[in-house]
C-alpha cells in the first residue's frame, strides 16, 4: 500500500519537476526579455526626451489643435508624444517576444495574430482618432456658428454633426478591419439617405411659403435694405 502511494507521489513529483523544468527556463527568459524591454523602453524614452527637440512638430501639434486635443492642458510637446509612443512600441515588442519564448501552439497563435493584426489595428485606430478629432473640430465649428447666427438648438446641431462624422469614421474603420463591414456600411447608407430625404422634405415644406411670398413680390421694384450706421470697428 505504502509502495503504491510512493509511486503515485513519485509520478506526481516527476510530472511537476518535468513541468517546472519545461516551463521555468522559458519563464525566466520571458521575464528577462520583458525586464530588458522595459529597461530599453525607459532608456529610449529618456533619450528621446533629452535629445529630440522636434520644434516643427511642436508647432504642428499646436497649430492643428492636436496638442490640446490629446492633452487638454495644451502643453503637450512632440518629444513627449514620441517618447510615449517609443516606450509602448518597445514594450509591445518585448511582450510579444516573451510570449513567443514559450513556443506553444497557443502562444504561437497569439503572436501570429498580433503581428498580422497590428497594421490593421493601427490603421483602424488612426481612422478613429482622425474621425474623433474631425468630429470635435467640425462639431465646435457648427456650435459656434449656430450660436453666433442665433440658430435654435445649437448644441443639438453640433452633436448631430459630431455623431455623423464619428459614425462615418467607425464605418471606415470597420471596413479596414473587415469587421462587420457590410452591416456598418448598410446602416450608414440607410441613415445618411434617410437624413438627406428628411432634410429635403423639411426644407421644401419650410421654404414653400417663402417662395410664395417671393413670387408675389417679384414684380415690385426691390427696396434697398435699411442701412445701419453702426460699425463695431
Amino acid at each position, binding site marked *: 500500500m505504502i509502495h503504491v502511494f510512493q509511486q503515485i507521489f513519485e509520478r506526481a513529483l516527476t510530472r511537476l519537476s518535468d513541468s517546472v523544468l519545461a516551463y521555468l527556463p522559458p519563464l525566466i527568459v520571458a521575464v528577462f526579455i520583458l525586464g530588458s524591454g522595459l529597461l530599453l523602453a525607459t532608456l529610449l524614452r529618456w533619450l528621446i526626451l533629452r535629445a529630440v527637440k522636434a520644434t516643427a512638430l511642436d508647432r504642428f501639434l*499646436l*497649430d492643428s*489643435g492636436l*496638442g*490640446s486635443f490629446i492633452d*487638454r492642458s*495644451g*502643453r503637450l510637446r512632440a518629444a513627449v508624444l514620441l517618447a510615449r509612443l517609443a516606450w509602448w512600441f518597445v514594450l509591445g515588442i518585448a511582450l510579444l517576444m516573451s510570449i513567443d519564448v514559450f513556443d506553444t501552439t497557443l502562444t504561437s497563435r497569439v503572436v501570429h495574430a498580433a503581428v498580422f493584426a497590428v497594421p490593421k489595428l493601427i490603421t483602424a485606430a488612426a481612422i478613429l482618432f482622425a474621425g474623433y478629432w474631425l468630429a470635435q*473640430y467640425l462639431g*465646435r*465649428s457648427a*456650435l*459656434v*456658428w*449656430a*450660436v*453666433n447666427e*442665433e440658430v435654435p438648438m*445649437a*448644441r443639438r446641431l*453640433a452633436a448631430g454633426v459630431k455623431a455623423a462624422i464619428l459614425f462615418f469614421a467607425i464605418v471606415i474603420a470597420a471596413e479596414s478591419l473587415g469587421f462587420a463591414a457590410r452591416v456598418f456600411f448598410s446602416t450608414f447608407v440607410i441613415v445618411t439617405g434617410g437624413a438627406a430625404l428628411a432634410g429635403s422634405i423639411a426644407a421644401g415644406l419650410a421654404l414653400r411659403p417663402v417662395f410664395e411670398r417671393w413670387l408675389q413680390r417679384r414684380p415690385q421694384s426691390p427696396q434697398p*435694405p435699411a*442701412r*445701419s*450706421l*453702426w*460699425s*463695431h*470697428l
Partner: protein
Amino acid sequence: MAPDLALPDEARGAIENIGEADIVVGVPSFNNARTIPHVIRAIQAGLARYFSRFSAVIINSDGGSCDGTPEAALAATFDLSRLLILSTPLAAVHRLSFPYHGVPGKGSAFRLVFQMTRALRAKACVVVDADLRSITPEWIDSLLRPVLHADHDFVAPWYHRHKYDGTITNSIVYPLTRSLYGKRIRQPIGGDFGLSPRLVERYLTRSDWETDVARFGIDIWMTTVAVAENFRTCQSFLGAKLHDARDPAADLSEMLRQVTGSVFGLMEEYQSVWGPVSGSAPVDLYGFPHDVGLDPIAVNVDRMIEAFRAGCEHLDEIWSLALQADVLKAVHDLASRHLVLDDELWMRIIFDFACAWRRHRLERAHLLRSLTPLYLARTASFVMETREMFAAEVEQRIEALCITTEEMKPYLLARWRGGDAAIRFPPRAAAHAQTSDRMEVLP
C-alpha cells in the same frame, strides 16, 4: 524679409509713366461706388489747397467691386476753381485705379498702395477709407502735415464718433493697446492714417501680409508696429467720422476674430516690448478739436442679451477651456440676473482669451469666434449704462475702463507667462477714486 508681391501690369506701367511723386494717397475699396466719388473729390481738393506744390498720386486699390467703384473713382472730378486758389502753381495729381493681388481684404489693398509709395519714392503716404461720408479736404492736411513738416512716421486719426460707434475699438482694442504699449492712441483701428516712407518700408519688409493682416487686422497691425517699434507717432483731429457702414451684425464674429486674432498675434510677437511697460502716456494731438454733430445710431440691446444668453447656454464647452473658473462662474451669474458686465470682469475675459489663444487651448478660430456673445453682452451693458450720458461722460467711462485695464496688467502678465494667477485688485470704490484722480480726458 517678405517676398515682394508682383505689382499688377497697370501699376508698373503707371510707375514708368509717372516716375516719382511726393505724395501717395491710397483709397482701398470694395463696392463703394456710392461714396468713393466724394472721397476722391475731398482728396483732390485737399491736395490742391494744402499741397499744391507737391506732385501727388491718388490710388484706388480695388478688391474686385461689381458696382463700378473703380469707374466712379476715376470719373470723380472737383472744380478746383471753386477753392479760389488763384496764384499757386498746381503740380500734377494723377488718379489711378487698380485691382490688387493676393488675399482679398483691406490689407492687401494697402500693400499695393505701399508698394507704389516705395516705387514712386514718395515723401509721405496717406490712406483713407472709401466709405467715408464726412471726409473733408482738411483731413488730407491733418494726416500729411505731421509727416511732411514735423518728421512724424505715423499719424493716427482722432475723430468724434457716436457713443455707440466703434464698440470693438472702445471696449477691446483701445484699452488693450494703450495698456500694453503705454501710448494713448484713441483710434488705433480708425482706418485713416498718415505714414512716412520709412514706416512704409518697414511694413513692406514684414512677412505676415498673408495672415489676418490682409483683412480687418491691417489697422491694428499698422498701429502696433509703429508704436512697438518706436516710430514717431502722433494723432490728428479730423472732426466727425461718418461712414457708410454695412449691417453691423452681418459678419461680426469674423470681424472680431480677425481683429482680436491680430491683437493677440502682435502681443505674442512684441511681448518683450509690452512686458515692462506700465501705465500710459498721451500721444501728441494736432489740429483744432471742436464739437460736431453726429448721426444717431439705433442699437438693439434685447437682441444682444439674447445672443449672450444663447452663448451661456451652449458655449460652456469652449468657454471652460478659455476662462478661469471664477470668471466663467461670474459670466454665468450674469446670464441669470440684470446684465451689468463691469470693467474688471470684462478685461479678465479678454485677458483669459488672450492667454488661451497663446496656449492653443483649442482651435484659435473657434476660441475667438466664441467671444462674440461675450462682446455683445459687454456692448449691451455699455449701452444700458451710458444711455443717458453725453459724449464727454461716455469718454470718461471709456477712460475708466482703460485705467482698470492698466491696473490689471500684472494679472495679464502672470497669466501670459504661464501662471494661473489670482491677482488681488483694489476694491471697486478705491479703484474708482484712483480712476477719477488719474483720469485724463483727451482734448
